[in-house]
């Protein structure tokens, strides 16, 4: 059995991250992490007719740049794992039709980056596939239109709202090669603490992040200070503070090593309320800042968990609360 504890899988074959790439929009490009991104777009519509097409191009750009960077060709990719926020995950499937490989579409809302990496790592570790490509993306304009209001509508956002990141990330996992590797993964459970405020995703997702983290520490016997960096996906300011409080109640005090991609990607001056969100948030931060730092040797042990709010526009109008999920991966530099 590779499973340790209740939800964690130890990957003895050490799936390597042989390549990674991130693409972000102009606003994200002006944020504090600008020097780390693979490509910063000047036009968030990428010259396309619709924003949906633009989002798909965004993923395509990340995916093909990631393959190119690895020195492999699209034909060498055995499996493509991907998901996004749009209805019926069109950005992912439309990207998959661009190249000749097997594809599994995933939906984990904003947790998709680690959902795809956790699954991909297992597929590589089990030697079912050699090269597995994992990707996800989100776009501010398409998310606003699907989940909220038209872009030009003059409304005020509540202070707890977050800003959907325009960005995509792709990570190529391989059984062979050099690079940081995935040591273990902890799959998350759906947690619902009855939060139904669609403008406060941080509060809806924090319990799921707490549950996955707590289980990870119980399964592995590790303590938070074992890691150089513990990063959550897009809890934002509200959600990450809530997570710290919840973890403290569970007896795990976070030290200086905790961060949240949603807090990191934008500057406070960029007026994004509680910070960034969306699949592209953790995808672009992981595939730029985190992996670069690991490759440089600045950090060695990273616990990374993307968090997702599993709601639909119908479910929230029908008064349902928002279930959250978080999947964690442990990335080691060497």
């Amino acid at each position: 059995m590779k499973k340790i504890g209740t939800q964690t899988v130890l990957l003895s074959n050490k799936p390597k991250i042989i390549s990674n790439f991130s693409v972000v929009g102009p606003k994200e490009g002006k944020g504090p992490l600008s020097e780390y991104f693979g490509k910063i777009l000047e036009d968030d519509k990428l010259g396309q007719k619709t924003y949906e097409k633009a989002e798909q191009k965004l993923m395509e750009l990340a995916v093909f740049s990631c393959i190119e960077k690895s020195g492999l060709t699209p034909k060498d990719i055995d499996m493509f794992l991907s998901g996004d926020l749009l209805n019926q995950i069109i950005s992912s499937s439309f990207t998959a039709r661009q190249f000749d490989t097997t594809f599994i579409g995933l939906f984990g809302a904003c947790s998709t980056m680690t959902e795809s990496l956790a699954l991909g790592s297992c597929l590589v570790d089990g030697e079912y596939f050699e090269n597995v490509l994992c990707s996800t993306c989100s776009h501010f304009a398409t998310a606003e239109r699907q989940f909220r209001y038209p872009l030009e509508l003059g409304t005020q956002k509540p202070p707890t709202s977050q800003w959907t990141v325009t960005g995509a990330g792709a990570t190529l996992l391989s059984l062979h090669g050099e690079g940081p590797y995935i040591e273990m993964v902890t799959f998350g459970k759906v947690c619902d603490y009855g939060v139904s405020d669609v403008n406060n995703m941080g509060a809806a997702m924090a319990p799921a992040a707490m549950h996955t983290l707590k289980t990870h520490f119980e399964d592995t016997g590790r303590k938070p200070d074992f890691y150089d960096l513990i990063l959550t996906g897009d809890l934002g300011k509200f959600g990450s503070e809530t997570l710290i409080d919840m973890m403290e109640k569970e007896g795990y005090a976070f030290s200086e090593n905790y961060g949240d991609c949603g807090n990191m990607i934008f500057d406070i001056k960029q007026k994004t309320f509680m910070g960034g969100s969306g699949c592209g948030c953790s995808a672009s931060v992981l595939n730029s800042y985190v992996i670069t730092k690991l490759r440089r040797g600045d950090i060695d042990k990273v616990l990374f968990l993307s968090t997702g709010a599993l709601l639909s526009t119908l479910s929230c109008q029908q008064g349902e609360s928002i279930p959250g999920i978080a999947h964690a991966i442990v990335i080691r530099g060497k």
Partner: protein
Amino acid sequence: MAEKSQIEAYNKYVEAKIPMTKPFPSLIWAFLVGGGICVIGQGVNDIITLLFPDMTTDVVSSYTLVFMIFLGTFFTGLGLYDKLGSFAGAGSVIPITGFANSVASPAIEFKTEGWIFGMSVKMFTIAGPIIVNGIASSILVGLVYMFL
């Protein structure tokens, strides 16, 4: 699903922690922008009265409304009305320019799905409830007025 006691305790915690919109700057901005739009409306009204002295007050009001609706739509098209709304709040939503914005913005947004199923169908997604409830409440008031 978490246990009932956990849900209650967590929601209580969240409620207590939620940052509130600061009322003072919100009120000032809403007052200034909303007032400003009304001043522009009054100005338009005065100019029309000056240019067409024979017009009755009712007709002048109608033309003023048409012009204000044009302004709201025009600035929505320029991509400026949403920026105004982000700090003015109700100040730019309540005047008729806000109503124009609520019709024009989905019309622009859903144009990509075609003229019929996109623009025409989605045009009233935001203004629709205002119209429905507006008509329903005027019928109610009308009925009350009939018996008075």
